[in-house]
């Protein structure tokens, strides 16, 4: 009996592992969002928006999926987000890899920021970015600060090594500037 339950437990654990893997690896291109939580409808987040419960399905679907996060990374470059946010390090726009979120750091808050735009320069992308792409970019932004699982976050780029890849991003805020190697930053005590 006890061995049976032990087996059941280990089977369940295995199942969870397998599910996590499938979720991480799925390539879903059609973007049929589960549950219509339009970012436009989200209440603007306050500082450090508390985790809503239960978390909306997008969070697991996008933040747990390596393909979505990497697509978000591609779009981040394609839509020239780096023009202001400089690969997350911050330039004209605020840095995205630190712990500070002016308008809330949950996936929905970031999506809302992209859709609505924010004062002092962040333009509104309402109607410019389809839903799936929006969630992808938001999930990628979250990965910059290691808010998504390490086995989901993107690795290094195939261009100049500005950052060592989101999966190797330090959790603590990096020092600004400098030409030192990406990994040397944030290697604090």
């Amino acid at each position, binding site marked *: 009996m006890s061995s049976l339950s032990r087996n059941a437990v280990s089977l369940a654990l295995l199942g969870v592992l397998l599910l996590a893997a499938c979720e991480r690896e799925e*390539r879903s291109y059609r973007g049929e969002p589960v549950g219509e939580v339009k970012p436009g409808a989200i209440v603007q987040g306050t500082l450090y928006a508390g985790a809503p419960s239960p978390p909306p399905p997008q969070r697991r679907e996008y933040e747990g999926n390596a393909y979505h996060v990497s697509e978000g990374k591609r779009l981040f470059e394609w839509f020239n987000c780096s023009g202001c946010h400089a690969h997350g390090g911050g330039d004209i726009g605020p840095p995205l890899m630190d712990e500070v979120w002016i308008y809330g750091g949950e996936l929905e808050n970031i999506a809302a920021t992209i859709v609505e735009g924010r004062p002092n320069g962040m333009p509104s992308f309402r109607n410019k970015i389809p839903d799936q792409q929006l969630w992808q970019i938001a999930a990628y932004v979250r990965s910059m600060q290691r808010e998504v699982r390490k086995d989901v976050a993107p690795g290094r780029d195939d261009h100049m090594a500005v950052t060592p890849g989101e999966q190797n991003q330090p959790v603590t805020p990096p020092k600004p500037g400098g030409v030192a190697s990406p990994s040397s930053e944030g290697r604090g005590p």
Partner: protein
Amino acid sequence: MRWPPAPWGRKGRVLPILVLAACSGPQSMLDPAGGQAARIGVMGWILLAGCAFVYAVVLLWLLWALARRHRWVEPGGVLPPQAGVERRLTNGLVAWVVGTVLILFAFVAASYAVDKSLTHLANREEVVVEVEGKQWWWTVRYPDDDPSRSITTANEIHLPVGVPVRVKLKAADVIHSLWIPNLHGKMDLIPGRDNELFLTADREGIFRGQCAEFCGLQHAHMALDVIVHSRAAFDAWKEAQLAPAPAPADEALARGQALFLTSACTMCHGIRGTPASASVAPDLTHLASRRSIAAGALPYNRGNLAGWIADPQRIKPGNHMPLVGVPPSDLQALVAYLDSLK
């Protein structure tokens, strides 16, 4: 000195075409339409003839060896090698090796000669084309010293007939390979490296090229059209491409343009002559003059264009054009506008 037109260029093709009539086509190395492909074709036939001969010899000898019933052996018995036969076989082996070496030598010589003749065709270009491979389409540029006379289009190469062309090859993301079998063999497009390919088309026609290096989800749908026309037609095409997109002629088209400019389209696509200037997706300035959409995935027509915009992920799953969700009412106007971009 110009390389004389290949003697096999026209007549030599007759026999192969008779044999493989079904194999000619817009994307076939058996139907060469360029100096390079013709020379490689000859190399192919030389190799094929030599190899067929060797194959026949091996098979005949094998057949003889199996059919020969010259020595009797009791069940479980062993046939000891006989000195005389072994000597003859050793001589045979020596002859065999010598024969192999001779044939291989001939192959290497022929290969070298053809390679040499290909280099003769290189570096005498009158037209330069830059092709950049991207996941999963091609940017095609005709650079000009005067930047305003440079042309950018997508998934379509136009070549003047009989004119040597240098194709500069670059990759934007992963490795691709440009293969237009009727004109030449393939050459890889590798990130961080510059490659090039020299083409000389012998006759007018429409050919098809395809990516030949596996490049991800939509490797299968990464083709391009190659249109070879007369020098005059080529120049006319170039002039037409230089013009910006025509302004919307009527209100319906104007609505279509407005839809384009206010929707997600402008995040990636550019149309010269309008505020849309993004360049991460194919330039649409003269979209309606092209033969196909989505890198050869569909022939160009309004119906296909509408279907493509409505759901690009059904036609080419995984490609970078998202499901935008244009309402049906808007779709017609949008397609009408795009179709006006001749």
